[in-house]
């Protein structure tokens, strides 16, 4: 396998775009990423288009990628539709990376797009609740906030984490979101405001959860030569790993831990080398659990990280400088590629008001999707390295 590189990245503003369809949302980021890459768009060899709920919510059950690429004007190439729930964008990235690394393609396009606002919130929630086996867990009225609350409660109990510390994670991400022009929430919230917002699933309050959102994010993946020609800092894909839930009982580690360990090993790094991370904070407090699973701290050490501000954009290991899912928003299929875009921007010094004081050299993204047999159904981890 040869090295592959992240070329141009782009995303739409995340938010409520009632006047835009999937193809309208994807159009601008596709072309911004193409321009940013300084490539000839005729050279795009293959496109992977990630989207989760366009079948249910927009009625475009089939050929969504072709519909989106028709609007963009890029046709005639292989267009592959990718669905892996909230990790659809990361999965498109994984495939685009593999296409280039294996030599199947020189230049691959990864698109993630989602439109969750359909004018009726219950319909949107119902669509999200299909990201499980609808014949089993789906019959229990699965709600992601509930799943996360259950996952998190044991952790809180074990280490004596307080509700205030949970709110601090949300406050950090809202602060980052207020500094990101693409973010859905653009207002910093205090710990008190977060704790006082409506309880969704104790201990999770409304301002700790990600909103419904519409948006798109795009990355082009190419060769080293293309990355050098681009005129910006080359960002190499150190590794791109996709994990899935375990039902066999063979696995002793959580899906986030085992997938990230595999990604670190493939990239030749350790958790201690990570300098910036975008992780799947569908509810902000889950970050604390993930710090530990991803190896950012010793067992039980995550609450101290948040107390010390270690994961703020100016801290020692910034996490979710984009605002994360909590503040930036979570248009499911777009999320993984928006995470990749944020890391690339941080590495290239293009992150504006939330830019880390020193652009990082090693970054990671962790993106989850669906729920099955008590675990996240899909976890995607990417390691990016700046050269």
């Amino acid at each position, binding site marked *: 396998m040869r090295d592959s590189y992240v070329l141009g990245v782009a995303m739409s503003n995340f938010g409520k775009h009632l006047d835009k369809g999937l193809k309208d949302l994807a159009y601008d980021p596709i072309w911004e990423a193409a321009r940013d890459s300084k490539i000839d768009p005729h050279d795009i060899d293959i496109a992977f288009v990630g989207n989760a709920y366009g079948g249910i919510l927009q009625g475009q059950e089939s050929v969504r990628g072709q519909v989106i690429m028709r609007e963009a004007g890029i046709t005639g190439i292989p267009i592959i539709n990718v669905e892996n729930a909230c990790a659809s964008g990361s999965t498109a990235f994984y495939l685009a990376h593999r296409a280039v690394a294996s030599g199947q393609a020189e230049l691959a396009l990864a698109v993630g797009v989602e439109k969750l606002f359909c004018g009726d919130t*219950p*319909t949107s*929630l*119902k669509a999200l*609740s299909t990201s499980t086996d609808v*014949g*089993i*867990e789906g*019959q*229990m*009225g*699965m*709600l992601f*906030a*509930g799943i996360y*609350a*259950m*996952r998190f*409660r*044991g952790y809180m*109990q074990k280490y004596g984490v307080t509700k205030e510390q949970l709110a601090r994670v949300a406050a950090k991400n809202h602060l980052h979101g207020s500094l990101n022009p693409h973010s859905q929430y653009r207002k910093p919230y205090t710990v008190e405001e977060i704790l006082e917002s*409506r*309880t*969704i*699933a*104790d201990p999770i309050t409304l301002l700790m959860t990600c909103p419904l959102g519409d948006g798109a994010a795009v990355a082009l993946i190419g060769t080293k030569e293309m990355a050098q020609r681009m005129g910006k800092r080359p960002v190499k894909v150190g590794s791109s790993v996709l994990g899935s839930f375990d*039902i*066999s*009982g*063979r696995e002793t580690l959580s899906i986030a831990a085992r997938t990230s360990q595999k990604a670190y090993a493939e990239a030749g790094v350790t958790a201690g080398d990570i300098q910036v991370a975008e992780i799947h904070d569908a509810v902000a407090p889950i970050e604390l659990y993930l710090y530990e699973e991803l190896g950012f701290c010793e067992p039980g050490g995550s609450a101290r990280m948040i107390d010390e501000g270690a994961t703020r954009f100016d801290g020692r290991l910034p996490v979710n400088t984009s605002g994360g899912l909590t503040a930036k928003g979570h248009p499911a299929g777009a999320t993984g590629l928006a995470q990749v875009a944020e890391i690339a921007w941080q590495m290239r010094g293009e992150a504006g008001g939330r830019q880390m004081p020193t652009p990082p050299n090693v970054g990671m993204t962790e993106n989850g999707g669906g729920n099955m047999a*008590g675990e996240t159904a899909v976890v995607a981890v990417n390691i990016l390295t700046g050269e």
Partner: protein
Amino acid sequence: MDVKTLPRRPRVLVGKIGLDGHNRGAYVVAHGLRQYGVEVIYTGLRQTPATVARAAVQEDVDAIGISSMVGAHVSIVRKLRKELEKLNAVDIPITIGGIIPNEDFDELKALGVARIYPPGTEVKEIADFVFSLVVEKEWKCAVPGTLKGRSLEQMHLVGTTCSKCSRTYFPKRRNCPFCLDDAHVQEVELSRTGKLQSFVVTKAAPPGYSVPHAQGYVTLGDGGPTLFTLLTDYDESSLATGQSMELKCVEVRRDENDEPIVGYRFKPA
């Protein structure tokens, strides 16, 4: 349906209660059911409700068939039901045949009568009902294939166990994902009790579910699997991780043929 296809031969009691000498109908039904292979116990004329109830329990019948020709059917059924209650045997279905006016049907049904057979009823119809009582009912489950049992109260969860690695899975499966082998799996009745691993009471719910909406993971006893379930009959303030839970089966909704669809819930034990 043929009696030979049933797991066992059904047994019924046919009786006449009170001052009613019109036994021809009861004879026809008793004889007809015997020809279909049903074992019939006939009480003879002028029995009391207490005698009939006691005989039904002693003979362990699948159903009681009462014949009434003199208009006393409502009072007979009411008394018989009371006697069955005393013997803790209201689960034995009561059927009634004879001169039963249409306007009394609702009242009889409200008293728990399972079937009413007015004049003109084919014996085959009665036999089919009797046969259905001994067939293990295939319930339509909200999560397909997860529940078995004769009634909601007696229902249990169905899983799979692998004799090679001793792992148990729920819902039941065609292979063992640990061994990746289908030669050693068999269906197993799972424990009705377990421990609450984690739970949440959400203040929002997907369409079709009421708020608060309580869910949890329960690890079943006897080395059973962990399953995701809705919680019921709980007091939010006293729910606690590690507490003992008990299966409760409920009718979730009805299908297009008005047949019940059943589902599992767990409640604090």
